[in-house]
């Protein structure tokens, strides 16, 4: 993909992010942080490419290390978010 199309996606996504995040209720700002943490670990895509590529052993091991780190974040981030969200309960009437 050329730079301009990628950049367009980026700018539009920033606007989407702006409006979506303002609509998040302040009561859920901590889960918001932990879930954004989990999804920013989509960087695992780059780590997987590096660890699967042939040609450089150092590059491969850096990739595998990044896969471990990103996985900690993905599993930990989603799990802790879900643990927190399970605590939010409505009043029993």
């Amino acid at each position: 993909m050329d730079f301009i199309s990628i950049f367009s996606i980026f700018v539009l996504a920033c606007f989407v992010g702006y409006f979506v995040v303002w609509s998040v209720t302040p009561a859920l700002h901590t889960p918001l942080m932990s879930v954004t943490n989990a999804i920013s670990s989509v960087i695992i895509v780059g780590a997987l490419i590096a660890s699967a590529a042939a040609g450089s052993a150092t590059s491969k091991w850096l990739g595998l290390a990044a896969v471990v780190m990103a996985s900690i974040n993905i599993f930990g981030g989603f799990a802790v978010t879900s643990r927190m969200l399970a605590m939010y309960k409505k009043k029993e009437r």
Partner: protein
Amino acid sequence: MDVQAILSAATGGHGAVNPWAAIAYLVSGILFILALRGLSSPATAQSGNRFGMIGMTIAVVTTLLTHAPGTNTSAAHDGWAFTLDTIGLIEILAAIGIGAVIGIVMARRIAMTAMPQLVAAFHSLVGLAAVAVAAAAYLNPGAFGIADAAGQIHTVSRIEMGLGIAIGAITFSGSVIAFLKLNGNMSGAPIMLPGRHVINLGTLAAIIGLTAYFTQDQSPWVFWTITGLSFAIGFLLIIPIGGADMPVVVSMLNSYSGWAAAAMGFTLGNTAMIITGALVGSSGAILSYIMCRAMNRSFISVIAGGFGADAEAGAGGGAKEQRPWKPGSADDAAFLMSQAENVIIVPGYGMAVAQAQHALREMADQLKKEGVNVKYAIHPVAGRMPGHMNVLLAEANVPYDEVFELEDINGEFAQADVAFVIGANDVTNPAAKTDKSSPIYGMPILDVANAKTVLFVKRSMGGVGYAGVDNDVFYMDQTMMLLGDAKKMADDIVKALSGSGH
């Protein structure tokens, strides 16, 4: 769809983008948007979180399919033959498995009061992973499709890579410092290096200059110097920031971790990474803004650092005259609240430190049984990170529809019979509205002073809050000071309430 066809289409040429893979990444990007959208209400939040998990699964599986470890050999007949490197695949799956075990164990064990530390630790991992990926891409650019035949990395990719590694490294080292400060391994007091502004600006200028130079010369020394300097500036930036400003710092690092992912997304031309990076980046930026506004601090002054230090000096300077105040007991408090119609509870971080949230909820339950209308009022900086107090109350089984934000409840204090302040101080201080010389002047506060009676739980009359300012609420006629440990006081009030025998 035949897996082999996907594999061969994707690995056939690095320049060509597999349309199926591109659509899959787009879908996962959209699922991430829906994950955040779900957080607009606690009722939809769990399903939002599941969208996020599905999105991540799609991104990971797509990458595993299109970039499976192995070799392509051109076969005699039509198409490509692909030999899967089984050991390579096992290594990758093992890496994911190790991460999964560590992550899930951490998520299960962490105490809710320690959430800010956990989030800081997670940020540092995103940062370090970004650095590792950028370094891997630099060492093996061919695998990422960002180099020409001669092994020269494209100019645009060099800028993206430089930015990615710089932001990733700053996120890592900054988050490590934030973690140490939040976790108490390092003093929360700001550490001020002489000439730090000059050092920081110089380092920043050097990083930008070297990134520009990197487009001309892709030698290893340029790349690794950018990396080293970025690690250094992350430490330097966060060290002078005091403990009270940590909510802003954690949000800011949240934002950086997003920008780091976006920069890597540019390098890889990956829409899922770009969309996610932009979402997380904006989210962190908005949270930083909300936190700054709640403390009436400008973002620049937080970054410049040194808040805690000035305030302490100010508190020591002015010798205050003794003013009369009214002490009260748990029995008095129980009586006053059981007779009330409306009670608003104002919890602060001191309540969480004393682990009083369960006792507090019991107290509220007792009051509700007596027909009292109980609400909670939360200041945005009541906890140690955005929304922290809401989580702590939710953990203690406080229903979320009894918990209100500052702007939604502030008008109700005038109708409240009792404002019960526990573990909070500065966020109730009217000096923020009236005293221009006060260090907290301009900060939005909860108007507890408007309530008919104020019950103020505090350890002693000695300490005067984080900002080191005296609070006029202590000395008002309608205020009763309940001195003691927050948990013990709440427990005693519960006992007094249940003993009163309806």
